[in-house]
C-alpha cells in the first residue's frame, strides 16, 4: 500500500492534475462516517484501493457493507470523513465533478437494476447514448461487443424480464462496462444465484480483471466467492473495519469476530428490537 498523510488531502486534491495517476490510490477512504438520521451506521472507516486491485468488502447482514458501497458511488452523503476518488473528495464534489467521476465508474447492482421497459441492448446502450456523440451504428457495435464479453451475445433484443437471475447480472455488468470505466463496483454479485451460476459470475469478474486491469470493489458475504476473486479483503462488522489485508492474512486471523464470520458461527438470538438495532450499529472500535 502506498503510504500517504491523511491531513494532506486538500493539497492532494489541489495537485491532482500534477501527481502522476500511478502514484496514488484510485480510491482512498479516510475516517468515513455515515448516519441514517441520528444513528451512526459507519464508524470511521479508512482504506485504499490501488490501481488494478480487487478489494472485496465482506460482512454479515446489517454490517454496513452495502451502505459503504452506496457511499463510495455517491448515493449516500457521509456525515464525516472523506472518500477520495481519482483525487476528488466526493463528499464535497460539485454535481459536475461527481458526474465526471461517475462516468469513470461502473456499478453492478444486486438485482441488476436493468430498466424493465428497455431491451438488454438498449440498457447497455443507455450510457453511450447519454454521454457520447457516437453514431447509432457505432453504439450498436459497442453494445454487441460488451454483451459478447459477458456471454450474452444473442440476447440484445430480449427484455430483462425474459432473462434468468445470472443473465440479468451479466447484462448489468455489460451496462456497467459500457463507458470503459476505471473502477467497477459490484453489490453482492453472487446473491440469489445457484452455486454454478455464481461460479460463472466469479469467473466473469476474474476475466474482466485480466482483460481490463481495472480496479474493482466487490461487496459480498459469500466467502468462497470472496476468496476466489479478491486481491485484498476488508471485513466490516457493525459499521467498523475489524480486519483488512491479503486473503491469507484474513484466513489466519485470530480475531474472534473474524473467526466467527469465517467459521460461520451463529450469532446469539436477539431478544428485542432495540437490542437488534444496537447490535447492528454499535461502535465496537475504541474511540481516540
Amino acid at each position, binding site marked *: 500500500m502506498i503510504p500517504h498523510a491523511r491531513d494532506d488531502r486538500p493539497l492532494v486534491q489541489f495537485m491532482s492534475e500534477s501527481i502522476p495517476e500511478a502514484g496514488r490510490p484510485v480510491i482512498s477512504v479516510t475516517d468515513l462516517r455515515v448516519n441514517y438520521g441520528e444513528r451512526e451506521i459507519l464508524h470511521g472507516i479508512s482504506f485504499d484501493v490501488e490501481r488494478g486491485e480487487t478489494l472485496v468488502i465482506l460482512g454479515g447482514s446489517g454490517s454496513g457493507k452495502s451502505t459503504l458501497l452506496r457511499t463510495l*458511488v455517491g448515493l449516500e452523503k457521509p456525515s464525516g470523513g472523506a472518500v477520495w476518488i481519482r483525487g476528488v473528495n466526493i463528499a464535497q464534489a460539485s454535481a459536475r465533478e*461527481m458526474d465526471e467521476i461517475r462516468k469513470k465508474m461502473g*456499478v453492478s447492482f444486486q438485482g441488476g*437494476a436493468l430498466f*424493465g421497459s428497455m431491451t438488454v441492448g438498449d440498457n447497455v446502450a443507455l450510457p453511450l447514448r447519454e454521454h457520447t456523440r457516437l453514431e447509432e451504428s457505432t453504439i450498436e457495435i459497442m453494445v454487441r461487443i460488451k454483451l459478447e464479453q459477458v456471454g450474452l451475445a444473442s440476447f440484445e433484443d430480449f427484455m430483462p424480464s425474459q432473462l434468468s437471475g445470472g443473465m440479468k447480472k451479466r447484462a448489468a455488468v455489460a451496462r456497467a462496462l459500457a463507458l470503459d470505466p476505471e473502477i467497477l463496483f459490484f453489490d453482492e454479485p453472487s446473491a440469489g444465484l445457484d452455486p454454478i451460476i455464481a461460479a460463472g459470475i466469479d469467473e466473469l469478474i476474474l476475466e474482466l480483471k485480466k482483460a481490463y486491469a481495472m480496479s474493482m470493489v466487490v461487496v459480498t458475504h459469500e466467502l468462497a466467492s470472496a476468496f476466489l476473486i479478491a486481491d485484498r479483503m476488508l471485513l466490516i462488522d457493525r459499521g467498523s473495519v475489524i480486519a483488512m489485508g491479503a486473503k491469507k492474512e484474513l484466513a489466519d486471523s485470530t480475531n474472534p469476530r473474524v473467526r466467527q464470520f469465517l467459521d460461520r458461527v451463529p450469532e446469539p438470538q436477539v431478544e428485542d428490537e432495540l437490542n437488534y438495532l444496537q447490535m447492528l450499529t454499535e461502535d465496537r472500535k475504541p474511540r481516540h
Partner: protein
Amino acid sequence: MKAAEKVAAVPDRVGLETLKGLAYIGGLARLAAEAAYITLVGPFRGQRLRPQRAFHQAMAVGVRAIPIVSLISFFVGLIMALQSAYELQRLGAIQFVADAVAISIVRELGPLITAIIVIGRSGSAFAAEIGTMKVTEEVDALETMAVPPVAFLVAPKFLAMLVMVPCLTIWADFMGVMGGCLFGVAGANFTFVSYLKATSDALVLHDISTGLAKSALFSVVITAVGCQEGFSTGAGAEEIGRSTTAAVVNSIFLVILVDLVFTTLFYITNRV
C-alpha cells in the same frame, strides 16, 4: 394520555401537519421547476430533451386516454343538459340549455374531468413506475451512470402532459357539448346545427382560454405529485401501493385546490 393533555397537544399537531404540508408543496414546486427548466430552458443550454421518451409518454398519457375521456365527457355533457333543462323548463327558458352546458363544460367540467381521468390513468402510473424503479434500484442506477433521474424520468412526462392534457381538454369540451347536443336535439327542439350555433354564441374566447390555462396548470400538478410520490417510495412492494394511492388522493385534492384558487382569481379580476 389525559383529555386535557390531548387538547393541549392539538396546536402542536396542527402546526406540525401544516409544516409537513408546506414542505410537501415546496418539494412539488421544486420538482416542477426543475422539470420545467430542463424541458423549456435546457435545450437552449445544450442539455438533452429526450423527445422519443416524451413522444412515448404523450401516446400513453394522451392518445390512449381518448376513448375514456370521450365517453365520460359525453355522459357528463348529457347529464348537465338533463339537470339544467329540469330547472330551465320551469322558467320557460329551455332554449338556454346549450348555453348552460357549453359554459359549465368549457370553463369548469371539461378541464376538471380530464384532469381526474388523467390522474387515475397517468398520475398513478407515474408513481407506480418511478416507485418500482426506486425499489429495484433503477433510480440509483441512473444516478451512478451520471444520468439525472429528473431529466430522464420526469422531464419527458412533464412535456408530454403539458401538451397532451390541454389537447385532451379540448376534446373533452367537444364531447361534452356533443352530449348536451344529444339532449338538445332529442328533447329541446334544437337541430344539430342550431345547437352548435347556440353553443358558439354562448362562448367567448376567454372561456376557452381559461379552461385551457387551468388544464395546463393541472398537468403540472399531476406530473409533480405522481413523480414526487414515486421518488418518495420506500423499500418493499407495499410501498408502491402506498405511493400510488397517495399520488391519486393528493393529486385530486391539489387539482381541486388549484381550480378553486384559479377560479377565484378569475372571478376577482373579471369583477375589477
